[in-house]
């Protein structure tokens, strides 16, 4: 699409050529990124920020694994190790997973619903920059206090900042404040971003795109953003209380003044468990778009998929205390949260069966996005099964806070969510950059990462069974943990190698990759109806939306979907 003035068929001027914009120069490029309110550029900034922090927090993971590779390790001091696990967890959730989730949705939702931009473009930029700067604010903690070497004043109370470790008596200095204030700020960014996305979906759909014709990606984005709107504020509230406690002497979580440290855990996990679904729903969304296109079949059971997503959203509000089975709740509470946890696996199971039914009998094309999806299905199933095991309270009493839990949630977040994120990259990169990601490098990336992932996290289940607790900075030989830890560390470095291949692929393919064309995968949703990359105004002309697969109708006028839906 050439730059300059463009007109619609109605003849109205959409995009006057902007004077004084220096395209092609470095300053022009930076200006463009800093001042942009375009949802596509902000989406890419979000995802780019997520990748940058992925490398930083991944580096911390390597330090953790190097320390634990052998008994009595000396890579990091105990205090540095505590900072590493805390900041690794916090950054991975709030500045890797969340920005990537928001980036995916930011980029795709307006394109998929045929909108020109988000409902509030400037608010969108505001949300992004809050997230961006708060991340660096947290990392700044490493260079304050004792300085660059070592962990500085980095927070070290675990990523869920357990009370009373965070009270002024036990955490002197600003370390916990870096944690609570940076997460508070990015939380504000997330909520404003989520409101923006929900309003966009509800109010800016193109003509004909009724709720039951929305792509599943958009439906899941809607549910995800609802969860953000409702469940980020509890965390913000708890962090406000924590800050009041640390600075004004309030006594919310201080047992000596009658306060309750358990209440902190409740407040944290009221946020913390829905957060898992905030992260995994966009992964489901990606799988729900990629699997049908590469199986050459419409998604199986669309209404059930929507219902299951909404149901997961609701049930996720009532499962949080399964993180707390060992704090000593009464049997009614334990039973309630155990049953709710088992119940939530039903709609999740429905989704897995629907994806399998979509693949079943389809003409499967094993392209790269589909490979990641298939690996996702296997790994997410295992992650779900270990989740059910941990949801059974009596089992959880044995293995809570052991490496089994670490293995379980890394199976969810890496084996599930990150694999779906890679499917997202391989599927939509051609749309964003106009070039395909290289297949050979992509296969290297896929196999290295899959092997590395299993090598890292499969052994951790066994380390957990053998009683290895989480958060320990070292361990004695002779407990049967050595081999699992060594395998795990080797796996972590294989994953790091895979990430390097991936980054090379991203950079190389952006310049030299095969030209993609508008619709390289022969797909069905609206984003493929425009050019790759899409112009600033997204669409010159929108196809008529009369079914869930508007592009199928366009390509097959003799056999359109709307006759059957």
């Amino acid at each position, binding site marked *: 699409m050439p730059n300059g003035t463009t007109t619609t068929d109605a003849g109205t001027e959409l995009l006057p050529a902007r004077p004084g914009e220096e395209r092609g120069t470095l300053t022009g490029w930076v200006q463009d990124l800093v001042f942009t309110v375009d949802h596509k550029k902000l989406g890419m900034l979000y995802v780019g920020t997520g990748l940058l922090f992925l490398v930083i927090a991944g580096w911390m993971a390597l330090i953790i694994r190097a320390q634990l590779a052998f008994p009595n390790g000396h890579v990091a001091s105990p205090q540095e190790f505590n900072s590493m696990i805390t900041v690794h967890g916090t950054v991975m959730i709030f500045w890797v997973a969340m920005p990537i989730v928001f980036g995916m949705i930011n980029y795709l939702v307006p394109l998929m619903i045929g909108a020109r931009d988000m*409902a*509030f473009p400037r608010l969108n930029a505001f949300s992004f920059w809050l997230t961006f700067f708060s991340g660096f604010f947290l990392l700044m903690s490493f260079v304050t206090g004792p300085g660059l070497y070592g962990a500085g004043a980095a927070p070290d109370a675990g990523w869920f900042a357990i009370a009373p470790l965070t009270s002024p008596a036990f955490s002197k200095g600003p370390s916990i404040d870096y944690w609570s204030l940076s997460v508070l700020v990015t939380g504000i960014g997330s*909520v404003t971003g*989520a*409101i*923006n996305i*929900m*309003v966009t979906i*509800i*109010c*800016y*759909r193109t*003509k*004909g795109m*009724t709720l039951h014709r929305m792509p599943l990606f958009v439906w899941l984005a809607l549910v995800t953003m609802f969860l953000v*709107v*409702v*469940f*980020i*504020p*509890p965390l*913000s*509230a*708890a962090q*406000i*209380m924590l800050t*009041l*406690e640390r600075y*004004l*002497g*309030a*006594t*919310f979580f201080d047992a000596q*003044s*009658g*306060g*309750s440290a358990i*209440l902190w855990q409740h*407040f944290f996990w*009221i946020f913390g468990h829905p957060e898992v679904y905030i992260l995994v729903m966009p992964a489901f969304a990606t799988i729900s778009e990629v699997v049908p296109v590469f199986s050459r079949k419409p998604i199986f059971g669309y209404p059930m998929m929507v219902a299951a997503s909404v149901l997961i959203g609701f049930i996720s509000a009532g499962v949080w205390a399964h993180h707390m089975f060992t704090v000593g709740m009464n049997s009614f509470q334990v039973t309630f949260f155990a049953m709710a946890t088992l119940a939530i696996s039903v709609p999740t199971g429905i989704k897995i069966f629907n994806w399998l039914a979509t693949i079943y009998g389809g003409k499967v094309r094993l392209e790269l996005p589909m490979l990641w999806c298939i690996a996702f299905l296997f790994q997410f199933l295992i992650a779900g099964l270990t989740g059910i095991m941990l949801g059974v309270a009596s089992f959880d009493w044995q293995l809570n806070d052991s490496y089994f839990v670490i293995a379980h949630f890394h199976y969810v977040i890496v084996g599930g969510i990150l694999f779906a994120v890679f499917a997202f990259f391989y599927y939509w990169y051609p749309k964003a950059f106009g070039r395909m990601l290289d297949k050979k490098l992509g296969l290297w990336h896929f196999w290295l990462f899959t092997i590395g992932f299993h090598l890292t996290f499969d052994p951790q289940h066994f380390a957990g069974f053998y009683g290895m607790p989480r958060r320990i900075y070292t361990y004695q030989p002779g407990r049967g943990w050595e081999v699992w830890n060594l395998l795990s560390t080797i796996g972590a470095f294989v994953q790091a190698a895979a990430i390097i291949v991936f980054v090379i692929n991203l950079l190389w393919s952006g310049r030299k990759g095969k030209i993609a064309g508008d619709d390289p995968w022969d797909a069905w949703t609206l984003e493929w109806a425009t050019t790759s990359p899409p112009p600033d105004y997204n669409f010159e002309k929108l196809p*008529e939306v*009369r079914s869930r697969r508007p592009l199928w109708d366009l390509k097959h006028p003799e056999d359109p979907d*709307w006759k059957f*839906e």
Partner: protein
Amino acid sequence: MVNTNETEWRLPSHRVVAMILVILTETALFTIFVVAYLFYIGKSLSGPYPRDVLHFPWLGSILLFGSSGTIVAAEHHLKRGSLRDFHLWWGITFAAGVGFLLWTANEWIHLIYHERLTISTNLFGSTFYSLVGLHASHVLVGAFLLGLILVMSVTGRIQDRHHEHITMISWYWHFVDCVWAVVITVVYIISANS
């Protein structure tokens, strides 16, 4: 299936949906503070206790609940196009909001200097000042918005297309009012009588 191509394609206003979501997320925020307050009723290890120092907030409540009525009157006059009455009722609403804040300030001065209750005194102090303070900060934001609209309208910058903006501000004001109803129930009725 309804063929939407034939019918008019109409979607909800983005302002209305956004305000509903703002109210939803604020509700979630308040819920946690209310839960903390309820959870810690009767758990303070030392005084002062709610029943000793809290008095039912007649004046503040009349001001705030009354302002929800006057803002409806103001909107009514705006829709009828009588700008003078709109200014009058909107001005009263704004004054009531400011009055509520002054009443809160007075209550807090009394509690801090005469009853020796601060945020660090005991659990009651921590939960009371955080919940009531969070509400007061929302009244402050609401009063600022009310004042802004008043100034803009008096200087003639409010046009017909801004009516929905004004309705949204009034929704926010009603929300702040509803929260106050919850605060009264939890703080001034339940905890002061337990």
